[in-house]
């Protein structure tokens, strides 16, 4: 046990010294205690999902009780299969790209359940392209994600296709319909 404690301590100190990742310690701590299940690539969740964590950002709320949750947090209901930087943290919104980028017309589409009204919504995760990695609010959730052989269900592709530039900046999560049955 003492060996693991020493190891954990070294991990924590090295992290605190070496990076500015706000919630990595929370992630590692949770993982070691067995809570696990936190997104890994490349670093955990957007900081605002760990309330009170050092450097966490103020929540972005829609103001509509039918669209609840923090749009800067990986836990927001629309982000159930997102992979990338949240455009809400990059100068865009949940459904629009930041200025200076180009929204990719080719995209991947998933379904997420909105607990506020119990519906499964069809969400389009268009990428915003032509500007380098936003670097803010990285999230990777993979509900319904499948291997690349099924492109419409895989979020590992750079979906900056059909745009002037394939440089990836961030991803939106726009509602494009309601699924009759959640798949």
């Amino acid at each position, binding site marked *: 046990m003492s060996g693991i404690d020493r190891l954990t301590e070294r991990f924590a100190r090295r992290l605190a010294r070496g*990076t500015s990742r706000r919630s990595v310690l929370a992630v590692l701590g949770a993982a*070691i205690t067995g809570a696990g299940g936190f997104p890994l690539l*490349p670093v955990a969740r957007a900081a605002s999902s760990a309330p009170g964590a050092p450097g966490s950002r103020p929540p972005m709320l829609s103001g509509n009780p039918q669209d609840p949750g923090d749009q800067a947090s990986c836990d927001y209901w629309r982000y159930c299969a997102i992979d990338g930087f949240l455009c809400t943290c990059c100068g865009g919104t949940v459904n629009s790209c930041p200025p200076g980028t180009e929204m990719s017309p080719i995209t991947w589409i998933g379904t997420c359940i909105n607990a506020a009204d119990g519906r499964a919504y069809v969400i389009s995760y268009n990428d915003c392209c032509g500007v380098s990695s936003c670097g803010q609010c990285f999230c990777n959730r993979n*509900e319904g994600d499948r*291997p690349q052989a099924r492109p419409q269900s895989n979020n590992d592709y750079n979906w900056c296709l059909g745009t002037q530039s394939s440089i990836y900046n961030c991803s939106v999560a726009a509602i494009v319909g309601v699924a009759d049955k959640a798949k």
Partner: protein
Amino acid sequence: MRITALVLSLLLGASAVSAQSPPPPLPEEALPSVGRLPADYPASWVLVHDFRFLSILDGRVAVVDTADGVRPLKGLVRAAQFASMQYSRGRREIFTAETFYSRLTRGERTDAITIWDTATLEPKGEIVLPGGKRQQTVSYVGQFQLINGDRWALVTNFTPAQSVTVVDLDARRVLGEVDLPGCAHVFATGPRGFSSFCADGSMISVQLDDKGAVVSSATLARVQDLDNQPLFGNPAMVGRTAWFVSYKGQLKGFDLSGPVARPLTPASVGTAPGGAPEWRPGGWQVMASDAAGLLYVLMSPAGREGSHKDGGTEVWVVDPVRNQQLRRIDLKGVAGSITVTREATPHLVVARADGQIDLFDAASGQLVRQLGATAAMSPLIMVPAQ
């Protein structure tokens, strides 16, 4: 004791110096001075593909000596913009398939394979890929393969139309393109060909003639259940057999030595107590193999729908032929990618989300060395040098 001796020697030294002339200055150092690596990397060395999420267009491959705790990073090779990487020991070359823009993020696009010299890490040449359609994806080895005795390379394209560009590395020119609709990733197969996973769960094996055109193909139906037992994309190689693991821990091996892939008897990673809800593989590069043909699988106790990229906290060692779980290695934290060296005493190399790389004894599971986050920001794929 030691402190006293030190003070004493300083005093003595000081008094001695004050009585004589000071020591000669440190010598002048010759410039320019640039390091050089051995052309053939030792078995403790690993190539680490740094996807570099915060700056994807500035991706790299880090050459790392896992045995050197003081200076593990030996050098960097460019691997720009969702690049893919291959390494040929025999050719003494590293290859990166990359994408560039004339104004960094905008302008005219160029896709190319760059050929790097293993000793100097300088580019020896490049082969431009036509069409600007190289597949850009978070790192999968199936986007870029060496075939035909490392004389040719395959690069997958995705526009979203799917095809494969065939490249002659010796002549440094493109031979042609194989249309491959409905399928993703290629794995070197037979004397001069590849196998690919298709959307209907099948696998197609294709052989090429000496000009790079398709000369034969065969389809194996139902090798992958994309809904219930989907396979992680990065396999572990045992000779020319590619072992894949499913999201739920089923192991599927394919003998790729002949012109058509030959599925082997599936195996399982086995079980363990403490699953909450259940043990499943998790992470990015979750599969590794050792020289004896054992498989190493990165496992998480928190497995559920959607957890397959969340990382793992243990590595399970499995004999896929006898279908036996041999031992479990506690990684003391969450990791995303693993590989195993071909040293006489093999080591399990573990990469974590924040760039930390740790080294475990592959047999005993003991932590041997922590390299720190000294080589890569986003180490997604690791390839041992031997």
